[in-house]
């Protein structure tokens, strides 16, 4: 017996009462209160609980990585390297890089929001392989344990890129342990990607065809392709670095005729698609949020869906733009530059489509929408500065300078983290059954936006002036811009602390949320908040397109 989720008719006719957070009926059994105790969490195979386990792990690593960022910015307030020694500074930016890239940005949206929402959005009871899902969390935590071991026992100073021959021969820090930590966490990413691909292919609700899937699911499908096809390559790359350090298998050793540029090829073959692993899920979140808060179907749904796949595929062909001056051949540089410009087009299409969705919509400025609009703005700047770096002649001057640092922070912090925060706020009522304090959330969003721009926009100017990356001390004339950047960093840090406070507060004291506080479309809003362990009372059947916000006169009231 399946209920028909048709247009205008969703379960019991909705009372026309305005969506004030009416006190929900006394708490029924849901996935949170169905069981208590450590075992119920550490041995769960419920994708929703695993998502919360990941939320805890990922948040811990975010603040750990953030702490290093604060120390770096403090050091850079003065031209001389006088806060920490240069060895320590090198370890600071390496740990900041490794933790933020591998332990926060790559897992954050897929492992937290993706794990929680994909089964709900496609009307499934769970992911295809629940036990593999739990295993992926344990693998992630073991990798994190390796990294924290490296941290407490002296750190690693090779940069998150582990370039040889420095990492294999000249660094005498914990390169092997750090490499193994990332190697292990890579498998957590592979298992998550594998789980999503099989689930999306095999476990969609009846009637849920590919082009009725929410764009969040499309974005995660494209991301999973990258996770599955790319991550093994960095696994073998880091393994070869570990083997070269431990067993002298001198694959990259120039003294044996090895070629350090080969390491860079293998490293960037994964690490460029990895930046799409970081941004595509955020794009998925923004598509959902923009559609919900302008109460309109995404403009050009099919094009936006296809552009996610295009980014995933072309994203694998452009890695050479990290190596234009590294000794790679001029002609290969030409090819990679051309392909890098091609991969910029789908991103531009998405931005134009999000903007057009607002046209003739009914736009409300709830916090998720503020983050989404912030994302669109900052991602546009990030994407456009990417064109500077893809242009061969210009890249020679700006690569390895703060211009690159500003570019990828605009994409990762301005894009991925804004998307993550937007997603957390948008689905918070569904995840915890509570509403967060709207006023505080909007204040935090504005602080994050302002702090971010003050931190990273000066770095573009510093970059073109020629301040190199990873510099512990810098010439006098760069100081004013660096002080501005450090000032912005403290505002940004404050902006990130606020959500931590009021979201935790809302778990206990926030007003109870109804099943669909935002009147959003999508199967995840058709079930209770927080959902029951089985997700749906009855298997939902889908018979309408995604984001079917039917206008009043056409709503066929059954």
């Amino acid at each position, binding site marked *: 017996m399946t209920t028909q989720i048709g247009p205008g008719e969703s379960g019991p006719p909705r009372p026309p009462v305005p969506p004030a957070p009416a006190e929900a009926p006394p708490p029924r059994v849901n996935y949170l209160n169905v069981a208590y105790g450590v075992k119920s969490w550490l041995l769960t195979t419920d994708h929703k609980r695993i998502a919360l386990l990941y939320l805890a792990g990922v948040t811990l690593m975010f603040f750990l990585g953030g702490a290093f960022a604060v120390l770096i910015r403090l050091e850079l307030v003065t031209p001389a390297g006088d806060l920490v020694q240069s060895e320590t500074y090198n370890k600071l930016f390496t740990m900041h890089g490794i933790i933020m890239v591998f332990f926060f940005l790559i897992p954050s949206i897929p492992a937290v929001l993706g794990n929680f929402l994909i089964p709900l959005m496609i009307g499934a*009871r769970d992911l295809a392989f629940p036990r593999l899902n739990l295993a992926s969390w344990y693998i992630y935590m073991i990798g994190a344990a390796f990294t924290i071991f490296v941290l407490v026992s002296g750190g690693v100073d090779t940069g998150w890129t582990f370039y040889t021959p420095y990492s294999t021969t000249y660094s005498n820090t914990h390169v092997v342990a750090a490499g193994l930590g990332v190697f292990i966490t890579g498998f957590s990413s592979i298992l998550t990607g594998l789980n999503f*691909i099989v689930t999306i292919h095999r476990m969609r609700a009846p009637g849920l065809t590919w082009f009725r899937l929410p764009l969040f699911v499309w974005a995660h499908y494209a991301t999973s392709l990258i996770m599955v*096809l790319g991550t093994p390559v960095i696994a073998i790359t880091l393994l070869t670095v570990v083997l070269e350090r431990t067993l002298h298998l001198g694959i990259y050793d120039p003294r044996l005729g090895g070629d350090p540029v080969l390491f860079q090829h293998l490293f960037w073959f994964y690490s460029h698609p990895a930046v799409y692993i970081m941004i595509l899920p955020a794009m998925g979140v923004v598509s959902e949020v923009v559609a919900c808060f302008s109460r309109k179907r995404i403009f050009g749904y099919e094009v936006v869906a296809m552009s996610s796949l295009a980014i995933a595929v072309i994203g694998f062909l452009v890695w050479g733009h990290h190596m234009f001056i590294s000794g790679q051949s001029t002609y290969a540089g030409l090819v990679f530059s051309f392909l890098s410009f091609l991969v910029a087009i789908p991103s531009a299409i998405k931005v134009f489509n999000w903007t057009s969705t607002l046209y003739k919509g009914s736009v409300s400025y709830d916090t998720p929408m503020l983050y989404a609009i912030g994302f669109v703005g900052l991602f546009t700047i990030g994407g456009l500065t990417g064109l500077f770096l893809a242009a061969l002649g210009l890249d020679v001057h700006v690569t390895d300078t703060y211009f690159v640092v500003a570019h990828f922070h605009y994409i990762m912090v301005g894009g991925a983290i804004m998307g993550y925060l937007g997603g957390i706020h948008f689905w918070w009522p569904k995840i915890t059954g509570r509403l967060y304090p709207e006023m505080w959330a909007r204040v935090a969003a504005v602080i994050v936006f302002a702090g971010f721009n003050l931190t990273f926009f000066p770095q573009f100017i510093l970059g073109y002036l020629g301040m190199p990356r990873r510099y512990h001390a810098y010439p006098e004339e760069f100081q004013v811009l660096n002080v501005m950047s450090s000032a912005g960093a403290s505002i940004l840090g404050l902006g990130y602390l606020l959500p931590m406070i009021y979201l935790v507060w809302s778990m206990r004291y926030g007003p109870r949320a109804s099943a669909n506080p935002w009147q959003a479309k999508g199967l995840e809003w058709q079930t209770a908040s927080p959902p029951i362990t089985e997700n749906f009372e009855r298997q939902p059947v889908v018979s309408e397109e995604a984001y079917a916000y039917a206008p009043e006169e056409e709503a066929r009231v059954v």
Partner: protein
Amino acid sequence: MSSVADAHGRDADRHHPDLVHHFESLPAQKEAATFGMWVFLVTEVMFFGGLFLAYTIYRNLYFHAFVQSSRHLNLTLGAVNTAVLICSSLTMAMGVHSSALGRRRATVAWLLLTVALGSVFLGIKAVEYKDKFDHHLVPGERFQAEELHLEGEESRPAQIFYALYFAMTGLHATHMVIGIPIILFIAWMAHRGRFSPEYHTPVELTGLYWHFVDIIWIFLFPLLYLIGRHH
């Protein structure tokens, strides 16, 4: 895949003990598991792919050194090993076949035969590795390449050949060292009658893994052993 007590009253066909709660039917569950295994094997292809790339690049950069170094590998042992692994692929396929027909004892027999052949392969590999250690052909300070009659300078890329040789065959051997206990565990489960013609997915997935490991060796053997055998 232990069955989960089905809290919700579902119709009869869904009451098979091996059907996990979130799948509609056994065939759907098997198809998902198989597809999932194949996606995993694709990651293994890319995992080994990194080493195959390094091999391809260095072989073209230092062809002469690679030919001389490869000539020192024991061709007969390599060929025998290839045959052993192909036999173990056959026995594994027969094992999967008999588990699909529900012939319990035949399944266990074939699987144990596969494990035996796999162990023979690892044994031969150990012999080869020992020979390399004896001839100081292991990368590192003690690497000596006189026997490869490579004058002075070219002994350095030879060390890269052996670095890749040990990396690739070592990774392959590690996959077999992981595979053998899995097959033993599956054989033990088959022995206890855990599988049936409707439900023998674990045997099939192990079979897929084993055949994949065989395919890797099918490529390793010619690339490492067969360059420069002609004069």
